[in-house]
Structures are given as C-alpha cells and as structure tokens.
C-alpha cells in the first residue's frame, strides 16, 4: 500500500476531488465559529433557488471540548471539511464515496455504513435528514439533506457533507493520538502545529476569558446585528449572529450560564440567525425571481 496521506495532502486531495466535480473551492471564513455549517457559504447559500456547489476547510471552535492537549481525541479547535451541493445531485452518495476512495480508503477491507442521524441546529433554526457515515465503527462524516435553514424551507434542498478531518487522518495514518498525525511529508506533526495552541486556548476558554467582557460582547453583537438588519445588510447581520453564538459558547465553557438561562441564550442566537436569513431572503428575492420566475419563499 502506498504511504498514507499527510494531513495537508489529504486536504489538498479533497480540494482536487471536489474542484473536479465543479465545486468552488473557498478558503476558511475569517471568524470564530462552532461548525462549518455556520459559514455563510453554507447557511445563507442554502437558501434561494440558485445552484451552489462549494467546498472548503473551516476551523471550528468548541470551547467546552478543550482538554489542555491531554486527550488524544478531543480538541477545542479542529478542522471540518465542508461540501455543499445545491440542488443535491442524484448520485451524491457515490460522489461522496469517491472522495473517500481518493484519500485512500479501500472498500474491500473496510466497513462503510450510513447510520441514521437527523441533524438539527437549534441556534440556526435548521434541520435536515441524513446519516453519520461510519468507517469501521468510527463516525467520519455527517451527511445531511438540508430541509430548513433559519426556519425557511430549502428550495431546492442542498446536500451537505461535513468530514471530521482529524479523525479521518488518524484513521488513514493509523495514529492513536491526533498530535502524532503527520501534518506534511517532511516530519511536521499536528502536535508541532497545534499542541501549544490547545494548552493555551483550553486555559483561556475555561479559566481566563473575562466573563464581563464576554457578556458585554454578546450584548454588543446582538445590538450590532439589529443595527445591520435595520440597515438592510443581512450578510453583516449574520456575521454578528456568528459572533454572538461563539461568545455564548465561551460563556458556557466558563460555566457562568445556568441551565435555566441556557435556553434563553440559544433562543437569542436563533432569533439573530433567523432574522439574518429572513433579511437575506428579502434582499435577494427580486434577483432570484428575475432568474427563476417560478420560485417563491
């Protein structure tokens, strides 16, 4: 068997694969967010009638998952590989399997299964049906047909693939710790790149982040989102929803949001995201309907 792909080679291979399938290859969004789905290229582009095919890496921040670099599988910062195809193509499963083959998974020796997993994001007011894709019992991808986003029906439905890149790499490279992954082919490991980051950022998330500043930031993001909505710049409004969502996650990690308050905060973020989606649709509908006269919200 050929040498397994390094972490970066695996990303490059996925880029090549999806570029060949007609995807726009984007770079990561320059904001802190909890999942690739928050990227406007997914959230906002999942709405409306226009075809949209994109692939990109998105760094994800999950403050509560930090383990100070001591857990071999858990990170507060990791990468997702996102593919969004709208409308969902009829052979999406095969396209996806082709990408696994491209990064070196041999289907004659591995057990690939599609296990029911309905996806829902309370903070985005979004849901879809699909699966977690298992490779030998490990979840390597979330595969979803979006049905609603920001509370609006997806017309048409987009297919979304979210690969957990570190997990896949650990699998392909047969490593027990994420920090031992070969980042490139010249001896640089994932640990060389990210271990110190995990230690410091775990400490920051759990112990250092100033909660008054975070609460204040949350309030300001809410206000700024409303300001943007009032002035009809829905993309800018949505950025503030992303910001508020991340600040909420940090506040959770600091343990200062009670169980009772939690739902209220999620509700606030959802209102921002929904408001942004609604404004985005309102803003875009004239041009959408000019090109797709049949289309309605």
């Amino acid at each position: 068997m050929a040498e397994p792909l390094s972490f970066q080679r695996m990303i490059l291979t996925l880029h090549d694969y999806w570029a060949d399938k007609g995807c726009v290859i984007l770079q990561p969004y320059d904001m802190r967010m909890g999942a690739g789905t928050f990227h406007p290229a997914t959230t906002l582009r999942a709405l409306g009638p226009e075809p949209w095919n994109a692939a990109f890496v998105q760094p994800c921040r999950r403050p509560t998952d930090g383990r100070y670099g001591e857990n071999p599988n858990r990170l507060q910062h990791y990468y997702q590989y996102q593919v969004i195809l709208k409308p969902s193509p009829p052979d999406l499963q095969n396209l996806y399997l082709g990408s696994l083959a491209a990064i070196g998974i041999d289907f004659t020796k591995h057990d690939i299964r599609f296990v029911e997993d309905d996806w829902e994001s309370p903070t985005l007011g979004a849901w879809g049906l699909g699966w977690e894709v298992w490779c030998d019992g490990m979840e390597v991808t979330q595969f979803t047909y979006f049905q609603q986003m920001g509370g609006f029906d997806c017309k048409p439905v987009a297919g979304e693939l979210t690969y957990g890149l570190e997990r896949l790499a650990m699998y392909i490279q047969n490593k027990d710790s994420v920090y031992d992954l070969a980042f490139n082919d010249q001896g640089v490991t994932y640990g060389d790149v990210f271990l110190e980051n995990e230690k410091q950022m775990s400490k920051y998330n759990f112990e250092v982040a100033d909660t008054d500043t975070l609460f204040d930031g949350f309030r300001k993001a809410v206000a700024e989102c409303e300001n943007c909505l009032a002035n009809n710049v829905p993309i800018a409004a949505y950025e503030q929803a992303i910001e508020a969502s991340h600040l909420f996650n940090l506040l959770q990690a600091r343990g200062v949001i009670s169980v009772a308050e939690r739902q209220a905060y999620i509700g606030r973020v959802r209102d921002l995201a929904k408001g942004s989606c609604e404004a985005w649709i309102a803003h875009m509908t004239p041009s959408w309907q000019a090109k797709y006269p049949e289309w309605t919200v």
Partner: protein
Amino acid sequence: MSVQDFLLELRSEEIPARMQEKARADLAALFEARLQALNLPFESIESYATPRRLALIVRGVAEMTAAASEERKGPRADAPAQAIEGFLRSTGLSREQLVERDDGKGNKVLFAVIDRPGIVAGSVLASAITGAITAFPWPKSMRWGAASSSTESQRWVRPLQGIIALLGDKLVPVEIAGVKSASVTVGHRFHHPGGITIGSANDYIEKLRACHVIVDGAERRNIIALGAKMAAQKAGLTLIEDDGLLYENAGLTEWPMPLLGRFDEAFLDVPPEVIQLTARVNQKYFVCRDSAGKLANAFVCVANIDAADGGEKIVEGNQKVLAARLSDARFFYETDLKTRLEDLTPKLEKIVFHEKLGTVADKVDRVAKLARWLAEEGIVKADPDQAERAARLAKADLVTGMVGEFPELQGLMGGYYAAAQGEPAAVAEAIRDHYKPVGQGDDVPTAPVTVAVALADKLDSITSFFGVDLKPSGSKDPFALRRSALGVIALILDNGLRFPLTKSASKDVLDFFADRLKVQQKEAGVRHDLIDAVFALGGEDDLVRLLARVKALQSFVTSEDGRNLLAGYKRAANILKKETWAPGEVADNEIYEAEPAEAALREALDVAEPKAEAAVEAEDYEAAMAALASLRAPIDKFFDDVTVVDPDAFKREMRLGLLARIRDAVNNVADFSKIEG
C-alpha cells in the same frame, strides 16, 4: 384465468434501521387495502426490508378485476330536455346509448346500462404503487434534488433511487419522482455495485443473495444471532443477547458479518453497566460474559461486508473506536470519583425540577424529610439517619459527567460513587435503586433504606404535582405520575408496609391511587368491583389491609355461600329501597309472635354481627366472611317462609328492620351493592 406473481422493489438511500420493520408491514397493508378496494383478487402478500430497499411480492394476482354491469334509472322519455341532458351528463352516455323501457303504467322511462369491463391487473397495480408511495406513513420524510425547488415535490424517507415493478415477467410502467420503473436493481453497495436484471418475483430473492444482499430481515437477524454467538463461543465466552441490537444491526446491513474484537482489560475497572451501555448505544456492539459470569473484555460488531482480509482491519478499526469511547467513559468515571456526592449537591440548586415546584435541591429536601419521617414513624423499618442521608445524596449523580453523558445511568452511578466514597452499603444501595420499580416487571426494592427513599421520592412527586394541579389526564401524563403511583403500590404491597395514605395524601390523590390499584390488581386477576366494594366503605387508606379484604371478599363471593348471600343481600336491599324504609319508626314495646324463620334469622344475626365486627377489627377478613356465610341458610329460609310486606304495619316494620340488619351487617365487611352479579 391464470394468475401471476407481482414484484415491487422501492430502492432508496439508506432507510433508518428503526423504521424498516414497520415500513415493511405498512407497505404490505397499504397494498392489501388498495388491491381489495380495486377488486383485484390475489392469494397472499409478503414484504421485505433492507437498508436500501423495501420489497413486496404479491402471489397469485388475477389477470384482471371482475367485469361489472350497472343499470341506472333516468327520467321519462318525454321529460323536459334539461332533465335528460342532466342524466346524460351524470352517466357520460349519449342519448342514443340510453335504453327505453316501459314502466308498466304506459310510460317510457330512460335507462342507462353502464358496462364496467374488468381492468387488467397491470394498470390496477400501477395505480396501487403510486397510491402507496404517496400515502406512505414514514415517521419522518424529506425532499431532495432539483424537484425540491417546490415544497410539493414527492417525499420519501431518503432519496428514492429505483423502482422494480414486474407482473410475471412483464414490466408494470410507473413513474414517481422522476424514477421510472424498470427490471434492474443493484446488489450490495461494495460487493456488487453494478446493475442486476430481475426476471420476476421468483428469482428476486435468490439473484440478490448471489449479489450479497439478504432481502429478508428475519434471515439477517438469524445470521447475526448465530454468528455473534459462535464468535463469542470461539473465544470461550458467552454472548449477552440483546434483541434490540439484533434488529438494529440487521437494519444496518445487507450482508451481515459478526466479528469479535477485544478491548484493554484495564477498562474493566469502569462499572460493567457503563461499558455495556457505551458499546451498545454508541457503537451498536454486543458484549460478552466470561465463564465466571463477569463482563469480558470483548465485543461483537456486525460489519456489512465480507472483507478481503477476513475482517482484520475492520476489527482493528472498531477496537480503536471503542477504546477511545471507553477512555472517555473512564475519564468521566475517574473525574466524578474525585468529587464527593455531598459536594455536588449545591449544584442541584441550579437545576429546575419544575417551574412551579422549585429546584431539584428543593425536591431533595422534601424527599429527605419524608424518608426520615417514614423511618421514624416505623412505617419502614429503616434507620432514620441512613434514610435521610441516602435521600440527600440520591440525586447528586445528576450533575456528574457520566450521567450527563448517559442519563439512563442515573442512580446506578450515584450508587457506585457513594460506595467508593465510603458511604454505608445500605445508603449506597438506596441511592442506586431509589428510582425502582420503573414500570411493571421491574424489581421492587426490599432493603429498608432503599424502600424509604424510593417511596419518599415517588410520593413527593405525586403529591407535589397534584398540589399544583398538574394531574395526569387522559393519555397525558408528562411527569409519569401513574408509573410513580404503581411504584408506590408495589413498594407498599411487596413489603407489607402498614401505611395510612391519608397521612400524606389528599382526597384526589387517594382516588388516583384507587384507580392505579385497580389497574395493577386487574393484571393479578382481582375484580375491580370488589376493590370498589371495599373502597366504598371509606376511611380505608391502608393498602395492605384493603387488599387482604378484597382478596377475602373475592374468594367468598365466588363460593356458593357467597353467591347466595349476595343474592339474599340484594333482595333485602331492593325491598328496603322499594319500601323506602327508615329506622326508628316503630315502638319497641309491642310484642308479637315471630314466625320460626324470622326468629331464627334474628338469632343468627345476633351471633353473626358481633363475630363479623370483631373479625374486621382483628383484620381477619376470612373469619368475617365466615360469619356472614352463617347467615346464608337463615336468610334463604326467611325469604322462603315469611312475607316481609305483611298487611300488619307492625310486623312489616319489624321484618324490614331485620332486612336492614342483614344489609348493615354485610356492608360492615364490604359494600356489597358495588359487587356485580
């Protein structure tokens, strides 16, 4: 007419495992109903489900539906043109096609003779396919692809990819959601990804088998059950069987291959329930026991492929995943152990139990006081300090990492942590088991401290929710109070607790318990009218006593003496009702010659009344019934020989008085008017 078999396969992307069995049954039921409605005869229907297909075979389908002819009477031939036109419109015929007949009174009347020729099976089946797909009751369905630009597009559980519809060897043409029926399907996703042409219903199952697809779910379950058992045996272990896992794995595979893997023995320090749950819930693995009956460091996963290397890589991969899961579990377990349960209890102040009933900490406080009271009153023979201690710690595990990850481990983890932190065994056991019994058939705790906490926890929930008027109604019981009440009843009865419920319960709570008791006793074969008969006496809030009474009553009223006494009682009660008799209307100084049967009954009552009363007092209900039974012969004789409603007012009053004594003596034991029969 010759008959043929019909094959339908609806192929889609992976159908959730939990939905397959019902979908299979639904498909068969929908087809059966439609074919019957359309009058197409057939012999039988069978249906199958795999992750990627629903299939249906209808055996012995007739060539066509039966032809039918219908006659409709119209207006008279000389009716106004408007009326005739209306009739033509409603029948779809022209004037020339109508028949004129004489109505016997010299009038010509128009008749429409409508022939409905038989419809060929193919077109009936085509409409049945469309109908079934459109009406299919998936628990959750979705839109997909370009067609989903409209929300009206065809929905299915996951994207529909292919339809096979063959009647005999002929294609039944249909098109749904852009998918045209054909005779081609696909085999196993990796073993045989290419197309397979199916000839007819008769080669479908075997052709797919040759392409690594076992169509029949029952067969896949057998393969898994047997294969998993053998794999465990080969390793000198015993498989812990699990029906749920069997169905789930059969729903995830078209070609199931059970494989045994191992995990590091060091993980066995983690409680076995945690390991089993992690393996089952997260990974859908079976686990095994060693020869000593203890959980072994092995699992059985079910792959969906006959791997080229015999499954070596698959086992390796699965072992790694389970190891990561178990180290997570161990991390939670070890972290949890570092904090004493009592130090966690302040966190319960932040968890709302119910907005009207305060926090979990508030509940814990109520339960602790009640548990102590139950012990102090001697209702439960437990040490009051231990009962209170256990109650105060019982909910602390709700804020541990492990229960956060696996809520179903509540109680159990608290028990482990309490034991590890040096709590007395009785306290740890009470923490572990205080949610029991959960539903019928669950173990009912008998250890006194556990009983005190389990009872207090449930009683608190019931009385608290009733206190803020959140009672179960109809099918709604969001706080599972019915289950709690059944739990209370089981705890009281199984442990023979003498516990007057009125001490802690209001009237509506008591009625609620009475209802639950009837439900619970019905399963044990106790008649609900007898429970009513005892409840109707009022003041009976001791379940043990109440049930002893009901049981004595049941054996009595089913005996011959009992049946006769009941008949006599009802006769007496009816006469009293009819005569609207009330006591105290008769001067008692008058004397008259009582008839022998009358005197005998009076004597019998003089003996039986105090006996029955004393027996009830002593809670010896058998004896009370025996005392009543002694009245049977005198009552029968009395009714045979004596006229109650005598013309002599005095005699009548005296005799009615006797009947009243019968009624009251009997009612002192149970309200016989509630007894049926």
